């Protein structure tokens, strides 16, 4: 009797577990970046990237778009003889070129510091991730990295925002939709879109997508030539400048003309 009870119990637990797994895979979060291939042409002045997908109901969402990690060199200013000067070159490693974050609630209110650091969510987590050379005491490091983040924000390459996520019920799940303004300052490259579903202080699901930004047409040709054929590019620039100078000089024959 006892054996039979144990058998049924194990069977029941396995069935529940399987059902749970099935239901989880049915409502697994999805993410899609619409307008995921941005072409930079002659009249490009920025674009938009919308991120949409399906998620479990009653979760908070955090969306992050990041560029590839890079190394940046900047000059640190300090006072010398009463004047502000560049006094030292600093190197910042593991710096995303672009960092855009949007969430339905303040990430600090819905996720603990450890998880925010693990998923690099929010500026404090980004500060933790960046490796600064030469090494500085904590207070100086925080000040320098805060300034660095402000520098990037001024250049429209970093931003954080709350809200602006449209969520609607769809079947047993919810659909979400948000639009990021894509500034023209974001350079060509591959960008990663990460969406995190947060519930009860835990990241319960994630989804990823990609955005590609690339130069096109005349812009691409000029950029490639500048990079790969610097000599020819320089001579062409000089040729055009000299021709333009003479050309305008000819037009002004009457005005600036000879005695």
């Amino acid at each position, binding site marked *: 009797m006892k054996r039979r009870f144990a058998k049924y119990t194990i069977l029941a637990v396995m069935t529940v577990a399987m059902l749970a797994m099935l239901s989880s895979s049915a409502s697994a979060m999805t993410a899609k970046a619409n307008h995921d291939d941005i072409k930079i*042409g002659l009249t490009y*002045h920025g674009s938009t990237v919308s991120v949409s997908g399906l998620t479990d109901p009653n979760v908070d969402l955090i969306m992050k778009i990041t560029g590839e990690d890079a190394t940046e060199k*900047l000059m640190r200013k300090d006072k010398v003889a009463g004047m*502000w*000067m560049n006094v030292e070159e600093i190197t910042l490693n593991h710096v995303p070129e672009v960092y855009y974050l949007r969430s339905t609630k303040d990430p600090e209110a819905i996720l603990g510091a450890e998880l925010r650091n693990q998923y690099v969510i929010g500026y404090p987590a980004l500060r933790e991730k960046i490796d600064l050379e030469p090494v500085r005491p904590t207070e100086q490091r925080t000040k320098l990295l805060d*300034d660095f983040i402000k520098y990037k924000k001024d250049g429209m390459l970093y931003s954080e925002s709350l809200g602006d996520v449209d969520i609607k019920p769809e079947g047993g799940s919810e659909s979400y939709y948000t639009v990021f303004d894509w500034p023209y300052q974001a350079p060509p490259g591959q960008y990663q879109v990460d969406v995190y579903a947060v519930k009860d202080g835990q990241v319960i699901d994630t989804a990823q997508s990609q955005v590609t930004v690339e130069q096109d047409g005349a812009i691409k040709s000029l950029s490639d030539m500048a990079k790969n054929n610097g*000599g020819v590019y320089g001579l062409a620039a000089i040729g055009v*400048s000299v021709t333009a100078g003479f050309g*305008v000089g000819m037009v002004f024959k009457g005005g*600036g003309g000879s005695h």
Partner: protein
Amino acid sequence: MYIYLPVAHTSINILIPMALGLTVGLLSGLFGVGGGFLMTPLLIMMGIPPTVAAATDSSQIVGASTSGTYAHWKLGNVDFRMGSVLLAGGLVGGFGGVQVIKILKAMGNADFVIKITYVLMLGIVGSYMLVESIAAIRRNRNKHREQKPQSDSRLTRAMKKLPLQMEFKKSGVTHSALVPLFFGVFVGVLAAVMGVGGGFLMVPVMVYLLRMPMHVVVGTSLFMILFNSIEVTFLQSYTNHTVDFMLAVLLLIGSTLGAQIGTIFGRKLKGDQLKILLAVVVLAVTFKMISDLTLTPSLLLGSTGGH
């Protein structure tokens, strides 16, 4: 209408660089300066990365100085002989200046020396030109026409004793070739240290030390700037890949036109009036630099590139 700049990686309203080019081209045609000391900071303020701003500016100066040199050549205002000797000195000095910068960078105080040199040179040149030109205009107004024969200074007498005396007909002066060569080297070193073409330094040297007439000074200075900027444009394109062709063309449209208009205006102004105007521009830039150096910046980080 906006246009995307392929090397600066930024988008810009096309009217802004055209207007900027027109303004700086006007100064170029009026005073014989390249305008780099004005254009590069303005481009940076518009969001162009400093390295691209400095390199593209030199490309634009090629166009403006071609236009200006051509206009002044037609007016008979270019002393090619004097210009060539100064240019030769400038090229040697420029090479020396680059070495000086390398040493200063290794010592870790390059930025301090560059900025102090900038403020001192601009301040001294601007103040001297302003005071001297106002005094000259006052003298003319008072009509003290009985011109006393000017006695040669000790420096002038020493310069006259040097070998290789040459007559510079267009400028109406005779100097040893060593004199313009020395001043060319001097300005070349300073220009390289400061990271500019050096027009605003060369103009006072030609006016006050070589005693050339102001209108010939403007034309001859532009002739030298043309060659300097061609060299810099090529080197920047070849070595650093930082010349933005699209931006250069937009600046050129304005600056070539501005250089011609400047030349026409320059013909209508007297030499001393021109000097006062240039002095005011130079002093305005000096005050801007002093305020940048003394006011606490909003960020304690800055870009590594630029002048």
